[in-house]
């Protein structure tokens, strides 16, 4: 099925998640859709799979305009999406999941459904036991089941969102095999949404690159990974002429830290961050940098290795204990992880302060918050609730809530969503903390930011940390190589 997207726009308030995207997908081919986090990939794919309607623009299937009312409607018209987390019902059996939403009769025809399921699965080399319960399946098997369900539902266009996350090497092999079969032999259209450029290179014949809601280009594959990275991130900036800061003693030391999650293993991280240093973690989303940051914050216990803070072994310490010992952490999700909707700015300050009074000194805290509002240029009152602030102001509030002095400050995307001026101001405030000997470790999706503000940089790719590079000496080429997973 030939898919044409014409001038797809999706606005969330003032945010243009998709800003006039037009592209064409030919049958029988595997396409890649790449772009950094927030580039608009998911939004576009949710529109194409009927999950949400576009603000404007048209979808054409084989030249005919199509309008989807729901994902089920899209599937009936031939478009199916495999989500990163399979949409199945864990307590059910495989066969029940397969029938769910397909057989609309009162009495289910298990016998023929079972035969159909086994036949379809074996055609693509999948081995699924129809009577197994979903709980007992691996991520890869659940994915296979979901794929079979979509195919049985008549999908001619398949969207796969990060399909190789959390599945084994063999399952990946089988998956790639089946994708080739679907396209080459059956003429289906497959779209791969992925951050893993090696896989994109291996599998796809063409990549569409999104950046900040716009289609910035297409690229025949395979090609040099740097070319893709450059399109995804834009032109890499020149190094800043920030004066060097005399670094102090080591604040954070990671020794052979290994983190295991069901999706990713981050092996043997060795790292030293010194007082006053700004250390940036680069890499595509989900490459392991966030796990390392969380391990430093005590939010993710390392499977192996040691974490030292100011020379003291803090391996296995919880977040609250580290917090009391001068570690600050600002997560990316502002209203999800950090702020409480419905509580006022003053109330946040009271909670965040290390010294806890039994009775709240409202006037004193209100005055303290007023002071911080001025320092951090927050547009709001002490009584304003956190959810009533704009995104940028929420970010400034999170910084305002950090205590002083801090030994170590861990930041996720410190200036995401801020305009240039407030981003600069945020960094100015962060630099001020260097004077107190605070070490700053941050991750960012914005390579400009990492190069402009870090002293040293490490790049993560598929869970592995690269060698540490000096921000003043690195080149765009070097970072592009590292992000693409080459040494």
């Amino acid at each position, binding site marked *: 099925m030939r898919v044409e997207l014409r001038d797809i726009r999706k606005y969330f308030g003032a945010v243009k998640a998709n800003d006039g995207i037009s592209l064409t997908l030919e049958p029988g081919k595997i396409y890649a859709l790449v772009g950094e986090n927030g580039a608009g990939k998911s939004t576009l794919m949710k529109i194409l799979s009927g999950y949400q309607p576009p603000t404007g623009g048209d979808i054409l299937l084989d030249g005919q305009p199509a309008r989807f009312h729901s994902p089920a409607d899209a599937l009936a018209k031939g478009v199916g999406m495999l989500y990163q987390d399979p949409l199945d019902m864990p307590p059910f059996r495989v066969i029940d999941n397969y029938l769910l939403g397909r057989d609309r009769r009162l009495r289910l025809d298990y016998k023929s459904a079972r035969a159909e399921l086994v036949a379809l699965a074996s055609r693509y080399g999948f081995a699924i036991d129809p009577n197994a319960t979903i709980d007992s399946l691996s991520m890869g098997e659940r994915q296979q089941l979901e794929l079979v369900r979509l195919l049985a539902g008549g999908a001619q266009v398949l969207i796969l969102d990060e399909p190789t996350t959390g599945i084994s090497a063999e399952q990946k092999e089988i998956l790639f095999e089946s994708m080739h079969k679907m396209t080459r032999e059956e003429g289906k259209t497959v779209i791969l949404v992925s951050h893993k450029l090696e896989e994109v290179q291996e599998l796809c014949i063409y990549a569409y690159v999104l950046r900040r809601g716009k289609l910035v280009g297409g690229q025949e594959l395979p090609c040099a990974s740097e070319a893709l990275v450059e399109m995804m991130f834009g032109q890499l900036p020149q190094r800043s002429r920030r004066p060097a800061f005399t670094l102090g003693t080591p604040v954070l030391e990671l020794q052979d830290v290994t983190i295991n999650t069901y999706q990713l293993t981050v092996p043997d991280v060795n790292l030293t961050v010194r007082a006053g240093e700004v250390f940036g973690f680069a890499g595509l989303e989900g490459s392991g940098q966030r796990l390392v940051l969380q391990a430093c914050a005590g939010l993710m216990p390392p499977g192996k290795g040691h974490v030292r803070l100011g020379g003291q072994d803090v391996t296995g310490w919880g*977040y*609250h204990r580290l*917090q009391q010992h001068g570690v600050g*952490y600002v*997560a990316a999700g502002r*209203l*999800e*992880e*950090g*702020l*409480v*909707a*419905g*509580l006022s700015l003053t*109330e*946040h300050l*009271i*909670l*965040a302060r*290390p010294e*806890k*009074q*039994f*009775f*709240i000194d*409202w006037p004193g805290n209100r005055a303290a918050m007023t002071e911080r509002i001025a320092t951090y240029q927050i547009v709001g009152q002490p009584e304003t609730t956190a*959810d009533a602030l704009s995104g940028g102001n929420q970010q400034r509030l999170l910084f305002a*809530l950090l205590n002083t002095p801090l030994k170590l400050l861990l930041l996720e995307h410190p200036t995401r969503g801020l305009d240039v001026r407030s981003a600069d101001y945020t960094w100015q405030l962060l630099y001020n903390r260097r004077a107190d000997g605070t070490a700053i470790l941050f991750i960012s999706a914005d390579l400009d930011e990492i190069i402009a503000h870090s002293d040293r940089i490490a790049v993560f790719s598929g869970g592995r940390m690269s060698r540490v590079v000096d921000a003043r000496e690195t080149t765009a080429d070097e970072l592009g190589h590292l992000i693409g997973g080459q040494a």
Partner: protein
Amino acid sequence: MNQTQSSGSGWVARVWPLVPIVAALLFTSALLLLFGASPAEAYRAMWDGSFGGSDKILGVIAFWVPLVLCSVGLLITFTAGLWNIGVEGQIVLGAIFASWVALRLSGPAWLLIPVEIGAAMLGGALWAALSAVLKTRGRVNEIFSGLALNGLAIILTNYLISGPWQPPEGGSFRGTAPFQDAALLPRLLESRFSPLSLVLAGLAFAAVFFILRGTTWGLKLKALGKNPASAYLLGVSSERETIMAMMFCGALAGLGGAVRVLSWFDSLRQSISGGIGFLALLIVMLAAYRILWVPFIAFFFSVVLNGSITLQLKTQLHSSLGGILTGVMVLFVLLFGSAKQLGIGGQASTGAGDAPEAIPPPPADTIAGDITPNVRGGD
């Protein structure tokens, strides 16, 4: 404190809370007409049952006191985002602990009563702590552990009544022998109302009011209830606060249980709580978590439920009418104005997970069946 947030569409918003009350009255009237009874007569009988004499009024107040105790306790757990359905069992355990003191120890009233009250609060708190620890350590939802513990508490009562605490004259399976006089709360005029219990309820109300208004603990609970993840990152220990909140509520529920055995009754009975815990859950929901409304709604409940006893005596109607009326009212409140639509959604956070209106109240007839304030019998 939330009024400022109400979507101030003038008088509609202000009158809106009355709509479910009127609707419930209309619905119940229609029901009465359907059965050929006169609504006016029924409501008059209920009114007489509650206000037709000082003994009646004191009865209403005596029933109201433990309701307020449990309701303000529940405000603490609701604030922390906890569904303490186990409040019913916590009342029973409070009653059992107080009864143990009353039956097994002896001494002057000034000594015995504080010990009873202390034991009751301890009993309720420990029972609640079980739910809390099952939640924080065993990841058992507090609703389910609460329900299970409610059942266990009733079984424990029945065992005690028919076993070790059986009255000497033989098991009646209705209750223990009456407690010694020194163990009972001093009551006003031959009624079941003890002024001391009113003082205790007032203290509990004030304590909860100030905890939620002006203490760091109250603020922590608020943060925990609205967004546990953010609260954690801000430094709130969810385990500690969950256990403390549950134990606080359990202690107040236990106190309510003590008031039930030591002043409403004079012994440990089979259905010692009489569904007060479930009623308190409804009261807090109806009040949309605003503490200042709680005493008034609790009083209204007490009036309706006490009034319906007279209803049965004076008319041919069953006393469960009171239960139906309150139950229907809660349903209408949930129907017409889930907290957000009412513009009183200050507590209902933006997250979907903690919307308290997701749980329907227990069916009206169960409540009515349990609420039989006149089972005092035997005297």
